[in-house]
């Protein structure tokens, strides 16, 4: 069973306590009314979908209930690091250079 560590609870927990929340660091446009349909569709639907490291939102839904962010490798399913909502996104390219996979 995959263990995911929660930065709020500060423990590793089984995957089934968590829910996936999509790609992280997608900012909602400050003025949605100013966007045309194409720009709005970009915000709503277009994601980076890399083969490699991805910063994602996860929610410890059956634990503390909080959202947090995690860097996961989309091929190996390995969690590289987790950090709290609001904290800066790690440098994914640097992590990749360091050999995270």
């Amino acid at each position, binding site marked *: 069973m995959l263990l995911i560590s929660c930065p709020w609870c500060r*423990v590793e927990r*089984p995957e089934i*306590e968590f829910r996936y929340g999509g790609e992280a660091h997608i900012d909602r446009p400050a003025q949605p009314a100013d966007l045309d349909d194409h720009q709005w569709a970009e915000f709503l639907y277009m994601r980076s979908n890399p083969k490699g490291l991805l910063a994602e939102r996860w929610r410890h839904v*059956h*634990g*503390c209930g*909080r959202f947090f962010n995690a860097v996961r490798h989309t091929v190996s399913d390995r969690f590289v690091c987790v950090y709290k909502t609001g904290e800066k996104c790690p440098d994914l390219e640097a992590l990749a250079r360091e050999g995270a996979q």
Partner: protein
Amino acid sequence: MPDTALYAPATTQGASVVSRPDVTVTRAAPLARLAFRGDATAAGKAGAAFGASLPMAPLAANPVGQRAALWLGPDEWLLLAASGTVGEEVPWALARTLCDEIATAVGTHPHALVDVSERNVALIVSGPRAAALLNTQVFLDLDEGAFPVGQVTRTLFTKAEIVLWRTGPDTFVVECWRSFAPYVEGLLANG
């Protein structure tokens, strides 16, 4: 039996769910239960009014006599209180009083306070095989090194969400939603 003054075995018929030499599962008598959410300031005021401070450390519980404040999340706590007389009914007067006192103490500071006394029921799982029995449905490491006495957490009991609190080396309390209780009891009885 649990190592807190809070939980007493229920006196109702069928309160004994499992009775084996090495493990027992017993329904606990009803308690006043409050769900509290708010920031550290709100939690501080609530704890002073409640009589047991709301722990800020993850997975911590603070039992004080017949009160206990359980950390569920960084802004969420479950508050438990017993009235002192074991009965078959929820101590509604106590729940009402605590609700009023906490609401008054926290005042206009943003918070949420909900009486959930009748939402939960508690099961006391006790004996040398308590951890082993729970581990048939709970996917946590219940070794005392990983899950020490006093630790509390929300987790899954197969498909039912529970709050699991280790009140002693061989004693756990399972707080589960009332409608999940037959499922939880059934799996423990067959575990």
